């Protein structure tokens, strides 16, 4: 019961601001309403007992990426962008596509019999994640770090003014 309630609340916290994100003509509001979405997702993670992922989610998405987006908004066109047309000419098609896709996906998800296995995650699964990263997925880990470095350098080089 309580779980259901929490789930409902979190889903709404996730989805309603998401609607604002994609529809609001005020770009800054859209960016700011990313925050509750991310926090809602975080809550879902916590409900899924993925605490570490939740923490990282807040740190990176809510903390860093949103701020970055706000920055770029401020540094490019600034302002709310209410005066400029925010939506392009394929709104109806896009909406249709989104709705249909949602419909199809939901149908698929409900129809499929998922091989749900009972059992719980390791209680303190930060350790598990860490071990997995450094044992089975060490290659992914290294590659990701290299990608991080490259994107850091790349972002600096791209965004630097040539003068």
């Amino acid at each position: 019961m309580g779980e259901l309630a929490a789930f409902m609340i979190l889903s709404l916290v996730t989805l309603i601001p998401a609607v604002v994100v994609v529809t609001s003509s005020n770009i800054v509001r859209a960016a700011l309403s990313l925050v509750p979405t991310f926090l809602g997702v975080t809550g879902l993670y916590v409900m899924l007992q993925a605490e570490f992922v939740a923490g990282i989610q807040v740190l990176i998405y809510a903390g860093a990426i949103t701020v970055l987006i706000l920055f770029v908004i401020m540094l490019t066109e600034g302002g709310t962008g209410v005066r400029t047309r925010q939506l392009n000419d394929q709104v109806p098609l896009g909406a249709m596509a989104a709705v249909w896709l949602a419909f199809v996906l939901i149908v698929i998800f409900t129809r499929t019999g998922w091989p749900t296995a009972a059992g719980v995650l390791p209680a303190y699964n930060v350790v598990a994640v860490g071990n997995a990263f450094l044992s089975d997925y060490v290659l992914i880990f290294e590659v990701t770090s290299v990608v991080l470095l490259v994107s850091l350098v790349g972002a600096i080089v791209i965004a630097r003014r040539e003068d």
Partner: protein
Amino acid sequence: MPWLIELLKAIGLAVVIFTFLAVVAAMLGVYLERKISGWIQARLGPKHIGPQGLLQTVADTVKLLQKEHITPRHADALIFNVAPVIVAVAALLDWVVIPFGKLGDRVLVVRDINIGVLYFAAMSSVIVIGIIAGGWSSNNKYALLGGLRSASQMISYEIPLALGILWAAMVAGTLSTVGIVDAQVRQGSWFMFKLPSPIGWFGLPFGILASLTFLTAATAEVNRVPFDLPEAESELVAGYFAEYTGMRFALFQLGEYGEMFGMAAVATIMFFGGWTEPHLQPYMWLLVTLGCLVVAAVILTTGLRQTLLVRPILMLAGLGLLLSLVMFFGTRAGLSQVLPSLMWFLAKMFALVFFLMWMRWTYPRLRLDQLLTLSWKVLLPLGLLNLLATGFVLTVWGR
């Protein structure tokens, strides 16, 4: 309905902590700030309301509560009103994972999450959103500049902060705050003076370096001098909350002081043994008293008027000596814990708070480029190297 009970309990705790922090952090914090600045600047500070002006901030709060809320005309009202709440709530949410002490074998903590310090970092990073939102929504160039500066500064100082946290987590082998304190008890030393066993005193620099990295980054995170560009009164009136009035302004203040106290608390937990007694370390009291005396000597040699300035420090030294002696004989007398752990925790936390305020009233403000240089070219490499070296030592010689 157990979950309802849980919810109520959580709400109750939240209220308790909120009030506690509102009182401790904001009011006491502001009071201390004034008093200490008074000492340092050879003034007296608030004096009239209450004994030694203790009730001054209460009076201020009451005044702020009465004041009218002004929302600038071209401001984005919604965001403008939400921003201070975000800041305050995020700052207070920090405290969920802070263990204050121990009763018997029960730790005084709201929730001992297994990602405690990570959670702390996350929450403190959320504050940025509130600040930038407030700064932008005020529709005021100073506020916007302050918000952006603050955002950039906090983003760039989150990395050294995280490095410091990582260091402690690595040495402790856990992210949980309680776990970290327990680890310090187990390993028999505060992490600031952590001695990786076989290399003995050579291990000392690691802990000190990590804790200094963390403290510096923390100072920057809470936008205090020498990192107070975002709210540089002299350039940007008050930075991102220039347009705020009344209780919203107070909320920003609350958030700021709550964050500051939170940082101090986390530093206490991660590097200064949390609620545990310093007599874990036989040489601790020497360090405390001697440190204070040295500081006093240094200040005596500076050109300021000494009497008012040196007093608190000598008081601190005396306090350290007293405590150490008490503890010494207490432990000789066989007491397991001379003072209640809560006392210890608060003592350490306030010592760090004092340190922060002391810095604020001692140092000039950095330039923006100096700020970023310090973060990216000094703290980041230092922290990384420190992390690597410590990890190497731990792997080679074991914990």
